[in-house]
């Protein structure tokens, strides 16, 4: 009796496994059959993914998602993700594709399928008061610097360069206000965000300049699919798409549209892809 129940259970499990396997085997066909591509993007990180006045998610990442959906001839559905749940969403199949400011690390490569080539990169920059005449991080010695609590470069910045406590806030708005009020000589943060802020409101930041701090490495970002899809049809298609974007200058065009200028990394990567 028990043996037969066990046998039946094993059969059901095997059948389920086979079904899931079949579903996984061709995600590309599934997306086409559904007619919808579900893309996970940030919704709180301008200019990559953020909400417009009507509550819709816009930015670089939704634009890239739309490009892929157009290529497949399907509709686009955006799912907002945050750094702490983005990989799980992909594993659980809640999203087909993740374009969410994800830095490429060896640990993450074990969990999700990073698409080669990498599509973007981010480093550290400073939005500095022109009067302070900041050129490199070394010029920050002994000066008050605004920052965001929890950024990975804060420790380095304080121990190697400023030599005093950073004026660090929870959110970007507060740090910006403190900078405008003259409480610090500059605001150190992710480059793309700062360049976007500076370019999107020239009047507000007329007294300030934005410059890259080359003391910290530029970390590339990757678009990701499920790990087992990376070398499948779906992963290959995304990979070809990113290569085309780099060759045709599509990424440069979208970056220019949102950030207002092009980053050195992307210019170099595009030039390399064309060779």
């Amino acid at each position, binding site marked *: 009796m028990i043996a037969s129940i066990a046998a039946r259970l094993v059969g059901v499990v095997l059948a389920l496994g086979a079904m899931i396997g079949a579903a996984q085997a061709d995600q590309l066909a599934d997306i086409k059959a559904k007619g919808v591509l579900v893309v996970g993007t940030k919704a709180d990180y301008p200019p990559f993914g953020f909400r417009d006045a009507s509550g819709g998610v816009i930015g670089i990442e939704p634009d890239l998602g739309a490009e892929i959906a157009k290529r497949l001839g399907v509709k686009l559905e955006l799912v907002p993700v945050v750094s702490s749940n983005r990989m799980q969403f992909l594993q659980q199949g809640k999203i087909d594709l993740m374009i969410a400011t994800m830095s490429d690390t060896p640990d993450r490569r074990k969990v999700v399928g990073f698409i080669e080539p990498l599509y973007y990169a981010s480093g550290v920059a400073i939005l500095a008061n022109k009067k302070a005449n900041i050129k490199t991080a070394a010029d920050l010695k002994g000066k008050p610097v605004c920052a965001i609590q929890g950024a990975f470069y804060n420790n380095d910045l304080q121990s190697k360069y400023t030599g005093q406590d950073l004026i660090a*806030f929870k959110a970007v708005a507060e740090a910006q*206000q403190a900078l405008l009020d003259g*409480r610090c000589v500059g605001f150190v943060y992710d480059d793309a965000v700062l360049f976007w802020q500076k370019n999107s409101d020239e009047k507000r930041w007329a007294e300030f300049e934005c410059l890259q701090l080359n003391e910290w490495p530029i970390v590339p970002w990757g678009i990701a699919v499920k790990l087992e899809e990376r070398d499948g049809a779906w992963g290959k298609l995304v990979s070809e798409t990113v290569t085309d974007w780099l060759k045709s200058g599509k990424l440069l065009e979208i970056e220019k549209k949102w950030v207002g200028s092009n980053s050195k990394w992307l210019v170099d990567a595009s030039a390399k892809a064309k060779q």
Partner: protein
Amino acid sequence: MDSFWEFLRHVHDAYGINLVHFYDSFERGRLLKGMLTTLQLSVLCIGLSILIGIFGAWLQGSRFRVLKTLVQAYIQFFRNTPPLVQMFFFYFALGPLMPRVVNDYGIAQPMLGSFAWAMISLSFFAGAFNIEIFRSGIDAVQSATVEAADALGFSRWQAYRYVILPLAVRICLPALNNNLVNLVKTTTQAYAIAVPETLFVASQIWSDRINVLEMMITLLLFYLFLVGILVWGMIRLERALAIPGFGR
């Protein structure tokens, strides 16, 4: 001492208990500085808020209507709004309106920094409660005693200074004790306007070194210790001031 830090480093490597905020000299230095800042902020705010309480309670007994109304308005404003909101208001709304000083690198900086604003807003916040606490003590002083002082020719201020306040303080010490404990704990909110106090430094360390659990425990023990000392001191004070047959 160095061998003890080495031991803690070994504990981290061998057992994964990450006490980097003790064994790393940079982290230890800034944590200690943060604790010192908390201590400074606490002591200054306790002093200022008690002064506000004493004078506010005296003004409340004033014959002038305007003064009384002003004190009442102050109490209502600071007692009925959250301390965090007050701190943001002082730092971001009032702060930039202050006179500016041009510093050596040519930027016009507002005169008061985050520490000064945290001290001001926390003192005003706790001071509002202290006025009410002192008033409760003053109300409990028997009117016959006050009349006796009056009959002996004490002026209003003299009667307050030499007769009413010493008795009132003894009555309201337990309530004052409570409020000061709250005040010391509320100094952690200065974290929001970037005062490098203990919680601020701790959160910076735990996000850099990913030792959230160890840091949280350290933080909790530190405040338990700090508030413990305050409570111990207040109880000693209560005992020292006790008058046999009065109040108990």
